[in-house]
């Protein structure tokens, strides 16, 4: 996506401006609620503040949209901002507003244009069309970016956003989450999505903003592991519902026992990205605390892959501490996924960014915004793992004075400071900010949903990409119920590589911060790492450049303070080499365990087959030998059976016998030496 989202204090979000044009900012850094200032009046230039240090990967190289002319007019209540093609060359390019050029009056486009061309439009007339675009408008047009492209996916995304929020809220409040999801079919391709939780509830004054304003949230401005990141999700779901059905979002929330529950009905004003409250009254609710959100939307319910049903199952795997109650539509039986663990995962701590991986522009704005008076203390305050000593080293390496006022630094000096950072050794960020599910709980989660014959789980130590700590874990479940019909016929040949190949590719469960990812599998780092891993050496068939085959579910979980997704709909993890490497290592560890198991099992099967062969012939042999020698046949039969067992029960003997023998020999050698 070529779009940059920037917040401007008090005005709708502006898209497509660059750092270079930015004015110094007076607003404080993080965690400031967005609604702080009043609605922007037309034409007045707002001082904007970059948030790109948090979202640095979205740097644009586009030229600033220059406001030409003297008096920009507001275009009034036009839903689509129409711009001449010339505007594009002028560089105001963002993905959204390129409407149809009306092309009525010809005008020279750029300096490069030949002199003879007739002017189509003047800078002044063009300026009249140039206006800000609300983020809500932007996403109304680009709803696929948020995961609302098809009706089936829209339903899933709405559920997903609701569940993510519920789990995040409950965990942050230290409550064991219990989430109830209900889908009600209310017409052709029309559903009511209900997500209800036992979380802490939302304060009355915040409810409309949380659910009725895009890019409003608690999670964007801090480096802390959570499911939600941007503050888009649930509002976007509501917006989608409003767009397709015209119905408001219905929210009920209660913050504690004895308090009254608030009931809201909210509509989003997309042109201004603000909530409009339609209903607001208190109701009685039997819950002590919690939030319930109802969205009516156009969607399609279907079972199978990428369905809501499957998504919730995966949520249960990734969140063994969560209880999920699910009422599917169309009269299907309710599903209850009870907890597999009674303990909340440890609370992730919030951290500051790590100096490694900070981008130049981000550093620049950070130095301008800092409250610190000296360069040295600015580095210490704004970054994690920077002590006075480290800060001094960085500054000295850059050839600067530690006592300099940070905002006085010239661009060239910032650049040398930026170059100095990687040359100084700095500790990796504290891993406490990342909370993995944990080997044991991954296993619990898998066991809870999948009756397999073998499980293996691995949690890697924390690592860092671009200054962001992250941690990878992998788990796999093999065989058992996953094998399906092949196992039921009971033939001994239903296992082994050939049978595995018949099963088709494995199922890959991708998780990011405990959220199962459903779409864009092949664009995801987890998928690529899985394909790149050589599973053949672990006993699974694997066609070239594809997933391995077999009755297996493979889970890959990436936990990070900032999971790098390839798009806002959060479906695929970006391919950072550090992340790919960690995933591969985790997969290899799991793979080795699986390989060991498969070899052991293969050996056992082989021994069983051998035993079968010998047992078959022993009876005949006893007959013949009895006839030849008049030996007692039943006794011989017993002796032979015992022998056969000893000659086929390979593994116990193979492991124990050699050590015994070696010890015996050593003992004998010692005695001889005496």
């Amino acid at each position: 996506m070529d779009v940059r989202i920037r917040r401007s204090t008090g005005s709708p979000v502006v898209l497509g401006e660059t750092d270079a044009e930015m004015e110094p900012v007076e607003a404080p850094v993080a965690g400031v609620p967005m609604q702080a200032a009043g609605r922007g009046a037309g034409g007045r230039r707002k001082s904007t503040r970059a948030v790109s240090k948090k979202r640095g990967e979205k740097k644009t190289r586009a030229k600033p949209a220059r406001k030409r002319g003297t008096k920009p007019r507001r275009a009034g209540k036009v839903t689509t901002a129409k711009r001449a093609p010339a505007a594009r060359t002028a560089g105001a390019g963002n993905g959204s507003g390129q409407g149809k050029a009306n092309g009525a009056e010809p005008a020279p486009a750029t300096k490069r244009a030949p002199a003879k061309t007739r002017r189509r439009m003047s800078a002044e007339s063009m300026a009249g069309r140039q206006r800000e675009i609300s983020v809500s408008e932007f996403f109304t047009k680009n709803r696929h970016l948020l995961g609302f492209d098809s009706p089936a996916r829209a339903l899933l995304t709405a559920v997903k956003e609701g569940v993510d929020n519920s789990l995040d809220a409950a965990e942050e409040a230290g409550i064991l989450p219990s989430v109830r999801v209900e889908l009600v079919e209310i017409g052709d391709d029309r559903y009511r999505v209900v997500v209800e939780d036992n979380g802490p509830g939302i304060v009355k004054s915040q409810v409309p903003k949380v659910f009725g304003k895009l890019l409003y949230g608690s999670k964007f401005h801090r480096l802390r592991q959570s499911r939600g990141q941007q503050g888009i999700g649930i509002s976007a779901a509501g917006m989608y519902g409003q767009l397709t059905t015209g119905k408001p979002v219905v929210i009920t929330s209660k913050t504690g026992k004895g308090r009254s529950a608030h009931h809201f009905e909210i509509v989003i004003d997309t042109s201004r990205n603000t909530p409009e409250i339609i209903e607001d009254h208190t109701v009685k609710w039997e819950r002590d605390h919690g939030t319930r959100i109802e969205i009516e939307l156009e969607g399609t319910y279907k079972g199978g892959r990428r369905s809501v049903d499957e998504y919730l199952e995966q949520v249960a795997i990734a969140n063994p501490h969560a209880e999920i109650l699910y009422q599917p539509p169309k009269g299907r039986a309710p599903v209850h996924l009870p907890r597999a663990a009674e303990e909340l995962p440890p609370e992730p701590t919030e951290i500051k960014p790590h100096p490694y991986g900070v981008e130049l522009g981000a550093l620049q704005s950070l130095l301008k915004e800092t409250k610190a008076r000296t360069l040295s203390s600015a580095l210490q305050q704004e970054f994690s793992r920077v002590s006075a000593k480290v800060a001094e080293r960085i500054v000295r390496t850059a050839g600067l004075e530690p006592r300099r006022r940070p905002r006085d630094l010239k661009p060239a000096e910032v650049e040398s400071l930026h170059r100095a950072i990687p040359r100084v050794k700095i500790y990796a960020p504290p891993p406490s900010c990342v909370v993995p599910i944990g080997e044991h709980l991954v296993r619990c989660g898998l066991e809870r949903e999948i009756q397999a014959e073998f499980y293996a789980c691995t949690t890697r130590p924390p690592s860092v990409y671009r200054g962001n700590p992250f941690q990878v874990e992998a788990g796999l479940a093999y065989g058992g119920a996953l094998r399906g019909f092949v196992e039921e016929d009971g033939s001994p040949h239903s296992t082994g590589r050939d049978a595995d190949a018949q099963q088709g590719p494995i199922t890959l469960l991708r998780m990011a911060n405990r959220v199962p990812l459903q779409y864009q599998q092949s664009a995801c780092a987890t998928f690529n790492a899985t394909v790149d891993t050589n599973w053949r050496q672990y006993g699974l068939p694997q066609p070239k450049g594809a997933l391995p085959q077999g009755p297996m579910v493979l889970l890959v979980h990436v936990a990070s303070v900032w999971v790098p997704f390839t798009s806002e709909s959060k479906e695929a993890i970006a391919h950072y080499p550090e992340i790919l490497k960690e995933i591969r290592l985790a997969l290899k560890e799991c793979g080795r365990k699986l390989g060991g198991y498969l070899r052991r099992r293969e050996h056992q099967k082989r021994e069983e087959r051998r035993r079968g062969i010998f047992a078959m012939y022993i009876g005949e042999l006893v007959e013949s030998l009895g006839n030849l020698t008049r030996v007692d046949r039943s006794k011989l039969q017993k002796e032979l059976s015992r022998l056969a067992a000893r000659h086929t029960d390979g593994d116990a003997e193979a492991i124990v016998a050699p050590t015994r023998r070696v010890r015996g020999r050593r003992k004998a050698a010692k005695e001889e030496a005496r």
Partner: protein
Amino acid sequence: MSARPRKRRKKGDVASKLRELGEGAVRQIRAGSNPAVQIPARTLANVKYDRKRSIIELGDQTQTRALFNVGQARKYMQTFLVASACKDLLDAAKTTSIRDLYYITKHTIGGTKQNTFEEQEESDPIIEDLEVTIDSLREEMNLFASNRGAMVGDLTLVDAGDTIDLRRLGSGGWSVPSIVEENVIQFKRCNAKMILLVEKDAVWRRLNEDKFWKKHKAILIHGNGMAPRGVRRLCHRMVKELKLPLYVLVDNDPWGFYIYSVVKQGSINLAYESVRMAVPEARFVGLSSFDPKRFDLSSNVFIRLDETDQKRAKQMLAYPWFERKAWQREMHKMLKEGVKLEIEALSSKGISFISEEYLPRKIRERQYLV
């Protein structure tokens, strides 16, 4: 081939040898080891050509056949199954064919769909294995193969008590049984001066019709292709007991030569019986690669050597029992000309050319190879 010739013919009757085989297995089972039988290997690598006696003998390499080995278990069981059936035969003092034995021992293994033997090809080598293992002939275990080959000539013998005059057997001759041991066949009166073993039934009929045996005082015998054990054993006995020379008439191709060599010094597969079957003095009368020139045969009776013929000829050039100069010349000539000849090719010179001209001249002029 590091094999030394094995000591032959241990004492003791066959029944006790079979019992001893079984007791050995029981001992191994009692001792808790993997029961196994050692079977002398019937392979080219384990045969030795004894130049002095000019026979092929079995070396002392053995193969192990163990019960607790997936690849050998079945054969191990079959070995004892056959041994047990042979013991029953001996106990009942009855003889039977190896095909019969296959049916006697073939049955479904309890609780499975498998048979002890699926076809006779599986049971025949087991019998041969058993023969070498307990160092007894199948004939001694009262087993016989189906009759093959026929004989006529100036000879009277007793077959299972019946006196048979081999001069009065019409066109068919006496069918040679597979067991021709002293207890079954005894020679009574012999006026013949030689034995002529021909490869083919058709040629044998020609010679019989022409009463070749009468004119030349001969015993005429054929083996219907590769001479079976009965025919070879009988020739061996006649040569030894009646002191007659043996002439062999075969096709002029590698396969014909090989039939001669098997009669002369034994086969690789039955190397353990060479002593009792081989006739080192056997004379090869034809057809020789030099015969076309000698007898002025027209070239249209030649058959081109195909690839397998050439391959086989080259293989045989390397066998130690074909290393004599005359044989090397014979085969090199065949390879050089690239053609082979059937015995029937002689008929192009006249229907009785073989009995009236070819054979008498060859024998008279002593144009044979040894």
